[in-house]
């Protein structure tokens, strides 16, 4: 664990030579991250984590809320839970694919199995993370998604 954490930090250090503080100015309004999770505390702490890492994000309580939102077009990266009341994260992904609106998507789930992971990755997910996840891994993938 210690080793992998160290390697992620190195990767991030390479990606952001000037440090995290500069990232805020690096990404403008167009580089919005959307967070969809039905759990209030997970949603808000994730937003804070991204803010501490220099990313701006919008949070949504459900997939339906996100789809209704006007920020959708400005979203550069989507972080979504899979199991939610109403539309699931996978259904949201399918819906976006169907509308040809391919936003890089990172799934976070408390109980993902291999089948679910396979399905998500095949549909074009950037990553599939188990809760609780390593912040460095998440930040790295968000960074990668935004740099696309």
């Amino acid at each position, binding site marked *: 664990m210690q080793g992998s954490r160290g390697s992620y930090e190195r990767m991030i250090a390479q990606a952001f030579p000037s440090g995290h503080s500069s990232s805020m100015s690096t990404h403008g309004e167009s580089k919005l991250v959307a967070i969809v999770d039905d759990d209030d505390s997970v949603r808000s702490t994730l937003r804070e*984590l991204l803010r501490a890492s220099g990313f701006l994000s919008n949070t949504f309580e459900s997939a339906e809320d996100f789809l209704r939102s006007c920020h959708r077009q400005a979203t550069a990266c989507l972080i979504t839970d899979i199991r939610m009341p109403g539309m699931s994260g996978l259904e949201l992904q399918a819906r976006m694919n169907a509308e040809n609106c391919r936003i890089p998507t990172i799934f976070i789930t*408390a109980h993902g199995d291999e089948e679910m992971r396979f399905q998500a990755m095949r549909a074009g997910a950037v990553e599939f993370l188990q809760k609780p996840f390593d912040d460095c891994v998440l930040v790295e993938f968000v960074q990668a998604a935004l740099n696309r």
Partner: protein
Amino acid sequence: MDDPGKLKWTVVSVMSTALRYGLAVVSVAAALGLARAFVYFHLPQPFAAFALSAIAITFWYSGTAPGIVAAVLSSLVRSFFFEPDTNAESRVLYDVVFLVFALLMTRVARARNELERRVAERTAELTRSNDNLKREIAERSHAEYLTSKVFECSPDSISIVGTDYRYERVNPVYQRDWERAAESIVGMHVEDLWGKPLFENKLRPLLDRCFAGEDVSFVDWIDGTLGRRYVAITYSPLRSSVQRVEAALVIARDLTEHALASEALRQAQADLAHASRLTAMGELTASLAHEVNQPITAAVNGASTCVRWLTREDPDLGEAREAASGVIRNAKRAADIIKRIRSMSKKSEPTKQAIDLNEVIREIITMLHNEAHRYSISILTNLDATAPKVVADPVQVQQVMMNLIMNSIDAMKEVDRRRELRICSELAEHQQVVIAVSDTGVGLPSQQAKQIFDAFFTTKPHGIGMGLRISRTIVESHGGRLWAADNSPFGAKFYFTLPASLGSEG
């Protein structure tokens, strides 16, 4: 038909009349004979005295009418046989003497008759009271027989203990229990039979209360020379005619076997309820894991955020502090959930306390809302905030709520319509708080609606059919009721009531 009897009676009556008047004639004749004999032997002539005796005898034995006849006869005999030449004045004097004597004798005879009547009355009275006494004695001896039968044949141990704490009488149960002759127990001190600790701590205080005139009952486990026994004992004061208590009637029943059996039953029920809780918790593992995982994820996010604010080139302590307090909040939330799960899984003796049912409902919903979300079930509540508390075991009530909600979720998993779980609480009549759990699921099995509360009845592929059964046992053991009805327009509705705690603060 009764002519011979009547005839006989008439004959006896005539005979008796003849005899009575005959006595008058005979006694006067005897007086005449005796007087003539006196005259013959030249003795002073005492006919008058003899005649008076004859009249007296006749009055005494034959009554008034023959007595008067004797008086008249005496008068005639005197004037005919003795001193026929007496002048008219002395004849009248004699007649007057006889008449006065006869009158006096009439009074005497009447007095005698009165006396006889009284004697007869008294005799009858005595005979009656003698009969009563005999009957009373018979009744008493029967009562005594019954009493001794009860004493001898009672399965309970019965004894009489004097105020000196010594046995005055014991029944054969003592003989059986102590394996020694009952006579050898009589006279023994209670302390010597039961041992000093039991006597001093329990038996003596009870006996003393009884000797002070109180009827005392006692039900508990006792440790005496017979080992540990569960007994029900009653002490009744025995008084003599004076008001002082002279002894105690002690009746004791050994309920050890019953107590052990009911304890075993209670234990078995508790084990079953525990097993059923564990089964339900097992079914919920995935949901509960998710439930705990959420705050842990949030805490980890918060900690990462905190580290990031601190490791910047210009660390932002304010943001870091904010993130750290979020960690604390979320870690506590995780701990709370684990505490709830533990309390549901732990095996503990039921402890009743005043609890807020709405609080229990909210906790269960927190625990199960993920399970509901998993099947796209919305949970609606309508809880009466003014409903009073109930006295109940919180874990057991949670178990009932969990059973009902899990059943509802199971019933809605497959249905293709709005999936809605509705929980209501309100204060009903008779100080009962009623909880209703309704769903829009498959509904009650129409043919077997009454069987759903039977043990091992289930409509679920992997159910063991104990949930509703145990829930009903729990609710009833709290003095409430649990029943089911059809929900409108579809689904099932379960109700249960629990008595409101008296003197609750709301």
